[in-house]
């Protein structure tokens, strides 16, 4: 390596450098060799070569991303449950079984299959109305009343005082407990499948037979008020001039929807207007939003429930004799007010029906008081479908699996078992018809429902014997009722099992792709000897060719075998062609491949951390306690780093290494105090992320955290720059002013947000909302717009000093000390690292804003730890090992939990979408939610290149290859986790905890892998390009970033 001879692409710093040198030379009157022309050409070649290699590396990682996406796609589509949707519909004139001896069917006026009981209905859906919100609560020593208790007594009171006019029962939802899935269940009577879960906010029109469609077929006029999800499901079904839909996604708004519904519903109930409609559907969202925003144990929830209480009182007064009033929840909410999963609190909603006339009965006098808890006498939500259909004289929707609710058919005396048997026979017969059609369409083996068929025959025998014997006792009807009801429940349980149907070949294809992609990635990351950047080209070209051939093969196969599904054949063909191609590429460069078996304690530590974590996902306990396991591993890394630091011969290295290792451990533990416990961790875990375990707002003291971060973190980061004299140029502006200002703004945002939430300044709500949103936008602009301009145009953080020969700086580089003065480049020691690290701090700022105050603290600690890790890696000379990227993977996963997330769907902080925006806007809304959810992993993925760049000499060869290797290792960590969670989920697909624990963890692992892939490509490797170009501008191209083949050959 020659002595820092400046190559004359002089600009900026380079010019300063040249000027200083020229001055010195003039002063010393020594000659300057002029090789300008040569050097410029070489330099240009170097730059072009670097850019080409960089592009190839980017392309290779994109190729890996595609493999990951294809593998995950095939597995997920095979794994996430599917149910065949039949488009048959029930018709008024065609009852499912011969009922001529009971009733003459076919008239919507009197009732299609059964005489109708009500002319009209008002159906009120209170989103997230949990059963225990509606029943009285007596405080005991062990349990004190929470805010949601006793705030909504009207439902219980009416049902208890007037059992013939009203009843209240727990109303159990089939998970997933997201509103869209629930609306489907509540209107079609079928079981949801998991694959719908993701479409909650997009909405699809329902193409199965359902209650709303039946109402419309019967020419009923339906008015809808409230949540606009209904319009996505039934576009054009509602009376256009009376219907008032409201945006459902803005969970921060507690009142707009509710006030709108109330405002429009009462005029319609007025006798003058009742002729304008047949059914009103009112969907209140306030309770749900209060839950999401504050949690159930909050005064806002009590206020909301009292408001509902008052609304129902008024409705009871105003409703007329021929109208049925139904109030129900579509799901409950967990202790923090979120929902989506299948915990008890999430599935236990309430159902209440009311009639002005005595109508409802009880099969037993014991049932006169509503159940005290949701465990007693629950009804399934699908039971609403046959109940409402028959009460309103409609046919039961074709796909229904529910049973009529007994209170509504037993008669006010509680003894009309004949009617109950009748309606159960109708419902059972419709289920039977549906099951026949389904079995036929799907080609099912009759043995799967043999048990149900036997019950069906028995029920029909019981019915026939009653019909024959003319004289029938109540007990006979009771028996018949039980027999039909047994058939219904048996069919339901068969269907539950049946629709847990997995497409095993697809799942296996997906896993195969993921396994092979993992092998490719593993060899690329840890098994290549020499230049990654150079070796990528052959791998990529053959891989890409293989993909195309595979794709064509897949296409061909689908023509030959029409039973193959096109997407499966194409995905699998392309992926496997590509992998085979890369395999050939590896063969082509086989002399460069070494067996990727760890050789050092660090290699083993990386492997053990990754594999132990992956193996743990096979057990639900270890999956639940992932955060603690990560803490354990990170502390272990810290201890190993202490031991390793003690081995360093250089005293400074030893001291620094020890300091940073211990700091790293302490910071990990400090961050671990930020916890958001998942339900399964309780009682061994106490949530600290929010004000209380049952809230989703920050405590007042937590608002101080972002300020502390704003005041301390820029200084801390600065100290890592100052250590190597890199606190120069744009770094000063960025770290001392922009970053600090941005962090202060984000702290101010959260203070304003708390002011808005807590209504500290009543009357100024709108101003506060507008201001805080502006502040958030400004912060993001500083972080990303200003940040990226700084990052793109900044010169390396160097300073050139010409001074008399006296002092040597360890962190500087003395160019020439032959004369009386010397040129010193301050910041030489960490040109690459400091230049690149600006990118980390930019994204740190953006992520801090979108995390809650506690999360901002966690992200601040994470950033500090990242810089500490750089020092540990440097002082222990570990930049070439796998430990750095793997520890970043552990750190990212650890802080995912420390920013208030868990491996559950309900922990997604959807409301973060509204930090900078008032309404949903694509692509910003998903971007913000992803940034909030995976902020920690994103920040760590961005930090990976700095592991190998930190304190590397500017002219070190093949740094681009080192970056590629480190990024590949980092992605490898997540790819192993993803493969493990995928395989365990596939393997444990019949496990009781599948939906609660394994499936969400699989989804998280898959999304994290794709996010990290994308971040690595676009931000990390992409950012490294900017950083390399900038450094090369000063130090020249011949050596930076890549070693040119010619150079290397000469050395060999």
């Amino acid at each position, binding site marked *: 390596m020659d002595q820092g001879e400046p190559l004359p692409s002089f600009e900026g710093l380079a010019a300063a450098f040249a000027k200083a040198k020229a001055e010195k030379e003039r002063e010393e009157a020594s000659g300057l060799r002029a090789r300008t022309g040569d050097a410029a050409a070489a330099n240009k070649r170097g730059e072009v070569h670097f850019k080409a290699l960089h592009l190839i590396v980017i392309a290779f990682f994109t190729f890996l991303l595609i493999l990951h996406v294809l593998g995950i796609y095939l597995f997920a589509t095979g794994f996430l449950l599917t149910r065949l949707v039949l488009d048959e519909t029930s018709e008024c004139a065609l009852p499912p079984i011969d009922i001529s001896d009971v009733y003459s069917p076919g008239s919507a006026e009197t009732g299609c299959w059964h005489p109708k009981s009500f002319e009209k209905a008002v159906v009120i859906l209170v989103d997230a109305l949990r059963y225990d919100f509606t029943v009285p609560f007596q405080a005991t020593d062990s349990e004190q009343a929470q805010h949601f208790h006793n705030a909504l007594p009207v439902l219980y009171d009416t049902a208890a005082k007037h059992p013939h006019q009203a009843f209240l029962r727990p109303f159990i939802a089939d998970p997933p407990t997201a509103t869209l899935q629930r609306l489907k269940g509540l209107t079609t009577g079928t079981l949801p499948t998991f694959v719908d879960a993701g479409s909650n906010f997009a909405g699809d029109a329902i193409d199965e037979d359902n209650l709303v469609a039946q109402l419309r077929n019967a020419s009923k006029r339906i008015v809808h008020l409230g949540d606009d999800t209904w319009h996505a499901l039934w576009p054009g079904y509602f009376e256009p001039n009376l219907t008032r839909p409201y945006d459902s996604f803005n969970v921060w708004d507690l009142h707009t929807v509710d006030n709108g519904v109330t405002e429009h519903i009462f005029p319609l109930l007025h006798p003058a207007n009742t002729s304008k409609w047949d059914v009103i559907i009112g969907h209140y969202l306030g309770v749900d939003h209060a839950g999401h925003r504050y949690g159930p144990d909050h005064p806002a929830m009590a206020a909301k429930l009292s408001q509902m209480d008052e609304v129902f009182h008024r409705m009871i007064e105003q409703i007329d004799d021929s109208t049925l009033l139904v109030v129900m929840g579509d799901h409950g909410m967990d202790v923090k007010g979120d929902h989506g999963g299948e915990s008890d609190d999430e599935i236990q909603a309430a159902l209440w029906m009311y009639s002005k006339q005595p109508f409802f009965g009880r099969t037993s006098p014991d049932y006169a008081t509503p159940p005290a808890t949701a465990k007693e006498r629950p009804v399934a939500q699908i039971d609403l479908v046959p109940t409402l259909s028959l009460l309103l004289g409609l046919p039961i929707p074709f796909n229904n699996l529910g049973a009529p609710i007994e209170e509504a058919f037993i008669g006010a005396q509680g003894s009309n078992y004949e009617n109950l048997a009748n309606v159960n026979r109708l419902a059972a017969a419709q289920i039977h018809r549906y099951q026949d059609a389904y079995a036929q369409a799907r080609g099912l083996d009759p043995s799967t429902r043999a048990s149900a068929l036997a019950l069906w025959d028995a029920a029909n025998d019981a019915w026939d014997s009653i019909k024959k014997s003319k004289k029938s006792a109540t007990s006979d009807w009771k028996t018949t009722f039980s027999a039909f009801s047994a058939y219904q429940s048996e069919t339901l349980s068969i269907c539950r099992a049946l629709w847990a149907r997995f497409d095993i070949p697809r799942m296996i294809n997906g896993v195969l792709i993921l396994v092979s992609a993992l092998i490719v990635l593993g060899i690329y990351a840890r098994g290549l000897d020499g230049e990654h950047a150079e070796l990528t080209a052959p791998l990529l070209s053959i891989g890409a060719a293989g993909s195309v051939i595979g794709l064509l093969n897949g296409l061909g196969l689908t023509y030959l075998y029409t039973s193959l599904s096109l997407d499966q054949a194409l995905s699998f063909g392309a992926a496997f062609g590509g992998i085979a191609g890369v395999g050939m590429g590896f063969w082509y460069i086989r002399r460069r491949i070494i067996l990727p078996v760890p050789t050092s*304690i660090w290699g083993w530590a990386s492997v053990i951390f990754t594999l132990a974590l992956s193996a743990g996902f096979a057990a639900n*306990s270890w999956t639940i306690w992932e955060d603690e396991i990560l803490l354990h591993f990170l502390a272990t890394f810290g201890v190993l780093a202490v031991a390793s*630091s*003690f081995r360093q011969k250089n005293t400074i290295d030893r001291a620094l290494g020890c300091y940073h290792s211990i700091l790293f451990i302490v910071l990990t*533990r400090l961050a671990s*105090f930020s916890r958001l416990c998942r339900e399964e961790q309780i009682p061994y875990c106490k949530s600290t992320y929010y004000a209380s375990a049952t809230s989703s707002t920050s405590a007042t003291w937590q608002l101080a955290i972002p300020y502390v971060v704003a005041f301390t973190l820029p200084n801390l980061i600065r100290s890592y720059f100052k250590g190597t004299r890199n606190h120069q140029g744009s770094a000063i502006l960025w770290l001392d002013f922009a970053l600090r200002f941005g962090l202060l703004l984000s702290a101010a945002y959260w203070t304003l947000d708390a002011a808005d939430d807590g209504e500290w300044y009543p009357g100024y709500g709108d101003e506060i909302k507008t201001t805080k949103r502006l502040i958030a936008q400004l912060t993001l602009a500083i972080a990303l717009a200003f940040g990226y301009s700084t990052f793109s145009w900044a010169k390396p953080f160097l300073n050139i000093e010409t001074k008399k020969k006296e002092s040597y700086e360890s962190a500087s580089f003395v160019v020439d000390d032959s004369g009386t003065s010397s040129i010193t480049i301050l910041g030489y020691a960490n040109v690459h690292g400091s230049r690149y690290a600006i990118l980390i701090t930019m994204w740190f700022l953006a992520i801090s804003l979108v995390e809650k105050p506690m999360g901002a603290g966690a992200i601040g600690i994470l950033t500090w730890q990242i810089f500490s890790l750089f020092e540990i890696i440097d002082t222990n000379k570990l930049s070439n090992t796998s430990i750095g990227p793997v520890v970043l993977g552990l750190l990212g996963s650890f802080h995912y939990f420390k920013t208030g997330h868990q491996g559950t769907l309900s922990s997604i902080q959807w409301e973060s979408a509204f930090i900078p925006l008032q309404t949903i806007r694509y692509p910003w809304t998903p971007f913000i939610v992803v940034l909030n959810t995976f902020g920690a992993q994103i920040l760590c993925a961005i930090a990976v290149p700095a592991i190998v760049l930190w304190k590397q000499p500017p002219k070190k060869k093949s740094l681009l290859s080192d970056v590629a290797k480190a990024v590949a290792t980092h992605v490898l960590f997540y790819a192993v986790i993803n493969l493990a969670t995928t395989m365990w989920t596939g393997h444990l697909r019949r496990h009781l905890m599948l939906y609660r624990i394994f499936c969400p963890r699989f989804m998280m692992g898959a999304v994290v892998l794709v996010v990290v892939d994308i971040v690595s490509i676009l931000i990390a490797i992409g950012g490294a390009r900017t950083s390399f170009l900038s450094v090369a501008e000063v130090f020249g191209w011949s050596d930076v970033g890549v070693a040119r083949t010619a150079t290397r050959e000469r050395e060999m």
Partner: protein
Amino acid sequence: MKPPATPIDTLSNDAANLYKHLHPVLILSLYAYQFSSIVADPVPALTTTLIPLAVLQIAYAAICLPPIGSSNGVGGGEKKKPGERRKAAPGKLEVSFNSKIVPAFLSLISSTLPGIPVLALSLLLFGAPVTTHHAETLLAAAHISFLATLPLVYVHGVDGGRWREIVAAQVHIDEVFGCTLGTLVGAWLGAVPIPLDWDREWQKWPITIVTGAYIGFTVGKVLGGTILKGKTVSFE
């Protein structure tokens, strides 16, 4: 930097040879004997177990191990040149009660005084409960300290340079260092069953850690004295 200490040989008199094999059995028997009462009520049981544990460890050090500064021990009071005296005839060594038991007691004190706080702090950093279970954590640290550091201090003394090597895991593995590594690794692995939902009493803090430490001690002692003897931990 001085070369790493040579591996330590246990004394080769009859008592030492007998007791060095008896010791791990006694240690494990003690723990097994106390296990049910530890599970029933960890704090008092762990406290009372400390006394016999200390007696056994002191006995082990006094009977089997060369004290600091002794001829076949390692560095210490007087600095020796490496390799200067490797082969003193141990059979002739006069076993003086005072020169054995007193250093063993001193080792107990000088290993536990800094050892317990440092280990307790480490347990906290590894995720031990911070606001509760302080007595349990301290007792776990005490057990680990008695097992891992007492013999180590007895043979290596409190020399700073030597301890830097120990922390860096640069000393040669022998029976004594094997005990230390084994205890620590055992305690580390002891955390594995804590999260499992088996609902067993013994899963409570800190029983699995202490159990792991005892098992690790035995395994480390046996391996360190046999197949791993003389090897070093390599980080590279």
